[in-house]
């Protein structure tokens, strides 16, 4: 697969002491949805700002769409789309005017821009509200408008910074749907940051867990989950004797069996396939299953495993908090 983003040793130090991003190295492949997962203040937004040329790296290099972010910044800008965390559309203009405004910043001629604006407003379902002022838009509509603006130059690569921040569950699902659509129907590559685990789990092809400016682990959600030991099945058996551990161990997909008081704790690569086989086996030997439970490892556990704590809401710097509050307030309006 072709690499669309190549990052080597990227570092950003603020005010000579705060290491927001610390020697980060990773690649993003063409056509995938790549997620940056981490708590607030982990360095996600700083990384995205460097890759979208809004911040200059302190050291390290990166190429985006084949262009160097420091030396060919304008070429990078022309080939990517950016959907920032805040709602940046101009409130006094209509949705349509906002899109046309973005188009002009990319130097897209008026006739082409008009065609694309129609097509994008259709895509994000804002056709009917195109001529309403943005100040009358709901949070979900604003987010979709941002998405449309980010797509106006038909980029191959789209950056999304916390695309569902402050949205209700329904709208969040709708945004996920657009992201999947962009990837599947348009073959776009998406780079997104999030601090929602279920979001990373359900739409990202690969995830990088980032904390304190460092990448801790990169992999598919499945890889990350199985890296901490796979599914856990607990089976209670009425008969306390004999020990069935060895028998269960021979079933395929079973990795580990522990006999506890009245039940067995079984680790498996694929709990769904192992569990029925275990029940069948126990019954076929004339024993009785009293209860069974299957739990899949969540990214939560993965996160806990690798960072040593739960996703926490850390104090962001004051201007971030203010911007976020604006965003949230408008999302609720």
């Amino acid at each position: 697969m072709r690499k669309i983003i190549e990052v080597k040793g990227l570092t950003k130090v603020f005010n000579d002491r705060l290491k927001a991003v610390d020697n980060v190295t990773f690649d993003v492949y063409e056509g995938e949805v790549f997620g940056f997962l981490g708590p607030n203040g982990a360095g996600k937004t700083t990384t995205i700002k460097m890759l979208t040329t809004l911040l200059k790296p302190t050291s390290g290099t990166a190429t985006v769409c084949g262009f160097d972010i420091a030396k060919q910044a304008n070429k990078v800008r022309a080939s990517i789309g950016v959907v920032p965390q805040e709602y940046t559309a101009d409130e006094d203009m209509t949705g349509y005017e906002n899109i046309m405004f973005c188009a002009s910043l990319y130097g897209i001629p008026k006739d082409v821009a008009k065609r694309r604006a129609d097509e994008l407003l259709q895509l994000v379902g804002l056709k009917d509200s195109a001529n309403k002022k943005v100040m009358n838009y709901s949070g979900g509509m604003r987010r979709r408008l941002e998405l449309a603006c980010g797509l106006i130059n038909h980029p191959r690569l789209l950056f999304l910074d916390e695309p569902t921040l402050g949205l209700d569950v329904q709208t969040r699902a709708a945004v996920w749907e657009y992201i999947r659509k962009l990837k599947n129907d348009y073959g776009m590559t998406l780079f997104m940051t999030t601090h929602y685990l279920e979001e990373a789990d359900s739409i990202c092809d690969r995830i990088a867990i980032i904390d304190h400016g460092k990448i801790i682990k990169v992999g598919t959600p499945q890889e990350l989950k199985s890296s901490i030991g796979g599914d856990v099945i607990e089976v209670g058996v009425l008969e306390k004797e004999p020990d069935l551990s060895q028998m269960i161990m021979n079933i395929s997909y079973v990795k580990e069996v522990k006999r506890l008081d009245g039940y067995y704790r079984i680790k498996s690569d694929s709990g769904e396939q192992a569990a029925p086989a275990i029940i069948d086996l126990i019954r076929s030997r004339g024993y009785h299953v009293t209860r069974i439970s299957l739990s899949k490892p969540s990214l939560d556990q993965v996160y806990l495993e690798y960072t040593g704590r739960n996703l926490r809401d850390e104090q962001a710097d004051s201007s971030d908090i203010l911007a976020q509050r604006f965003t949230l307030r408008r999302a609720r309006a």
Partner: protein
Amino acid sequence: MSWSVEERVNTGKLHGLWSLTNRELMKWYKAPFIIFLSLIQPVIWLGLFGKAMNFSAIFSANSFNIPGLSIPKDVLNKISEQIMQNTFGTSDYFSFLSVGMLSFVIVFTAMFSGMSIVWDRRFGFLDKVLSTPVSRSVIVIGKVLSSVFRSLLQAAIILVVAILLGMNYGSITALGIAGTFAGLFLMTFGLSAFFLMLALRATDWQSQVAIMNLINLPLLFGSNALFPSKFMPNWLQTFVSINPITYGTDIGRQLLLGSPGFAPLGFDFLYLAVFAFVFASIGIIMSWRFLTK
């Protein structure tokens, strides 16, 4: 389905300039009420200050006489007229101030050019613009231009109001108006660039307001906009002679009122052109450096 790999893209050095300028102007022409509101203050100044300081009446025959001397009315009126001419270069203070008020509205409008970039930064709008291939200097020039348009329109309205309120328009010519606004254009261009430059790195509007308030009054009172500079103390006269507002106002006084100038017209224009060029250049150079941290 895939994106059409388009096509024509016009990313010249100045692309996006008109959209950026128009975005700011749009806020304004979509809400003409704001134009009206922002003109109330200068009109009140003009009406109260200009009419209250009725210097020409102080020495007129009706209000001034020395007991014991019977000075003929004609003599007193002539003296009065001469004093006014010598001091203000025109027959009344109101006309003198009217031209000064053109500079006043321009300073107050240009001042806010900096505020808008602070808000754009706050709302993340600036980041969005910066993430597009639009040239950094175009972002700054767009802001300056929109402020130039606004302040010139405001000045034009103030000029009309002043004439309606009794400004001496005997020596106004079309060429004089054109020359005056050319001078004001240079002045507001330089001032807008200057205030924008102060705001390029600012993230909070409070400090911006503080800076504006610190600067605007000395800038106005330390010029010939409200009072002729020749009676000011020397140290203040030095400041007046480097203050661009002095030259912008001087052009108007010479061309609209036919007053004797503070400096030759040619020098006024030259000074303002250099001022506008220097601050616009500094603003653009700073935009390359400071818009991206």
